[in-house]
C-alpha cells in the first residue's frame, strides 16, 4: 500500500515540555487508522503537529512523499489534510451552512459539496440556517465532520468524535465513515473508546506518554496487549 502520510521520529514541544517522543506512524491510501490512548497520551498533540497547528521539522512529516512538517496550518489544508477538531469547535457566529462553507475555503474541488454533505447528514439540511452551536451535540459533530469534508481532503483527521455523545449517536456518526472512505478519503480517528476504534479501523496505534506503545491490526491484537499498551499495566 502506498503511504499517504508518514511521520518519522516526530517530536513535539509545548515550551520546555516535550509531549511527543519519536513517533513513527504511517497511514496508507484508503486505510482507516485509529489512534487510541488515555488522556494526555499525546494523541491530540500528534494531530496538531500533522495539521500544522504546532510547527515541526519539515522532514518529520511527509504527505504524498513531500515534507510538510514546517508548513503553517493554512497551507497544510491546501495540500489535502483536514481536521475535525476535538470539541467540534464550530464557529458560534455562523449558521450551520456557513460553518460548512468555511470548510471549503481551501478551494479544493472534489466529491464533497454542500449537497453531498447534506446527503450524508440529511438533518443538517433541515437546520442549515440555525446557528451551529444551537444544535444537539451529535448534530454539531456532523457539522464538524461535514466542514472537514468540504475541504475535499485526501486525509481526514478526526479528534475524539465520540466524546460526550450518547452511544446511539456515536453509532450514527461512525456509520458515516464507510461513505467517506468510499469517496477516496483516508480517515484517521483519535479515540478513547477502544471498542469503537477496533470496530472501525483497519489498523490501530496505541499512544502512551507521548510514544507509540502498540501497533497492529484489530484481529491480531489481544485484549491483554491493548490493555497493557493503553494503561501501561
Amino acid at each position, binding site marked *: 500500500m502506498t503511504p499517504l502520510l508518514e511521520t518519522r521520529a516526530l517530536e513535539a514541544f509545548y515550551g520546555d515540555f516535550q509531549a511527543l517522543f519519536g513517533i513513527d506512524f504511517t497511514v496508507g491510501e484508503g486505510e482507516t487508522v485509529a489512534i487510541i490512548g488515555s488522556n494526555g497520551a499525546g494523541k491530540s498533540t500528534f494531530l496538531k503537529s500533522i495539521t500544522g497547528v504546532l510547527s515541526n521539522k519539515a522532514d518529520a512529516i511527509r504527505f504524498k512523499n513531500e515534507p510538510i512538517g514546517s508548513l503553517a496550518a493554512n497551507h497544510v489544508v491546501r495540500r489535502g489534510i483536514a481536521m475535525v477538531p476535538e470539541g467540534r469547535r464550530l*464557529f458560534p457566529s455562523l449558521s450551520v451552512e456557513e460553518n460548512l462553507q468555511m470548510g471549503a475555503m481551501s478551494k479544493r474541488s472534489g466529491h464533497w459539496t454542500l449537497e453531498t454533505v447534506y446527503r450524508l447528514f440529511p438533518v443538517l439540511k433541515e437546520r442549515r440556517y440555525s446557528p*451551529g452551536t444551537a444544535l444537539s451535540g451529535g448534530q454539531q459533530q456532523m457539522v464538524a465532520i461535514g466542514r472537514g469534508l468540504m475541504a475535499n481532503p485526501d486525509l481526514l483527521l478526526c479528534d475524539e468524535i465520540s466524546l460526550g455523545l450518547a452511544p446511539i449517536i456515536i453509532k450514527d456518526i461512525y456509520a458515516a465513515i464507510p461513505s467517506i472512505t468510499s469517496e477516496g478519503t483516508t480517515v484517521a480517528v483519535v479515540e478513547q473508546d477502544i471498542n469503537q476504534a477496533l470496530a472501525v479501523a483497519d489498523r490501530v496505534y496505541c499512544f502512551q506518554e507521548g510514544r507509540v506503545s502498540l501497533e497492529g491490526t484489530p484481529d491480531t491484537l489481544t485484549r491483554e496487549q491493548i490493555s497493557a499498551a493503553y494503561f501501561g499495566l
Partner: protein
Amino acid sequence: MDWVNAIVQGIFVGGLYALFATGLSLIFGVMRLVNIAHGDLIILAAFLSLAVVDGLNIHPLVSLVIVVPVMAAFGYALQRGILNFTLGKDILPPLLVTFGLSVIIQNALLETFSADSQRLQAGAIETASIPIGQGLAIGVLPLIIFVTAIVVIGGLQFVFYQTTLGRVFRATSDDAVTARTMGIDKSHVFALAMALALAVVAIAGVLMGIRTNFDPAVGPARLLFAFEAVIMGGLGNLWGTLAGGIILGVAQAIGAQINPGWQILAGHIAFLIVLVIRPNGLFPRIQG
C-alpha cells in the same frame, strides 16, 4: 421649537459620530484590537483630503476617490507590517503601539501642516438647507452625512452577513486557530479588516473636515466620541453604533441648548447613564 430643532440637529450630528465609531467597532469586533490612534487616523484622512483638494483643485467630496483607497492601503500595510505583531493574549501591546501611532500621526501632521485650524471648502452645500415647515430646516450637508452613515453601515452589514469575506471575518473573530486549519491566513484577514475600517475612516474624516474645523491635535476627542457611540450602542453591533452616535449627538444638542458650555459634558453624562443602566450597551450582539 428651538428644542425640536436642537434634537433634529443632534440626530444628524449622530450620523457623523456613527461614522467615527463604525471603524472602531469593526476592528474591535474582528480582532479585539482597541485602536487608540483611531481619532488621529480620522484627522489624517481629513488632512490628506486637504492636500489632494489643494494639489488637484477638486471638490472635497471628489477627493474621496483618492483618499478612500489610499487610507485603505495604508490600513492594510499598517496591520500587516505592525499591528499583527502586537496581537496575542496580552491586550497591552496593541494599546501601547496604537498610542504611539497616535503621537506619531499628531506630530507628523503638526510638522507638515502646522497647528493652524483647517477646513475643507465644499461650496454651497455647506450652508444649503431644506425647509421642513414651522421654522425648521435641515442642512443639506448634515443630511448627506447622515445618509452616508446609513449607507456605510448598511453596506458593512451586507459585507458581514452576506459575503464570503464577512463569513471569514466572523469565523476568524470566533476562533482564529480553527479558521486557520480551514486555510484562512489570519494576518491577511486582519489586514483586510483594517483596510475596510480605514476606508470608513477616510469617509468620516472628509465629511468631518467639511463640517467643522480641524487641526492636528483634535484626534483624541474624535476617538472619545467614537468610543462613547460604540459602547452605548453595544460592542459588535453596527446598527447599535448608529443608535449610540444619535444618542450622543442628541445629548450634546440638548446640553448646548441648556447652556452652550454644556454640550460636550451632556454627551459624557448620557454615556455614563447608559453605562450604569446597561453596562453591555443598549443593543449588545446576541451570542449564539
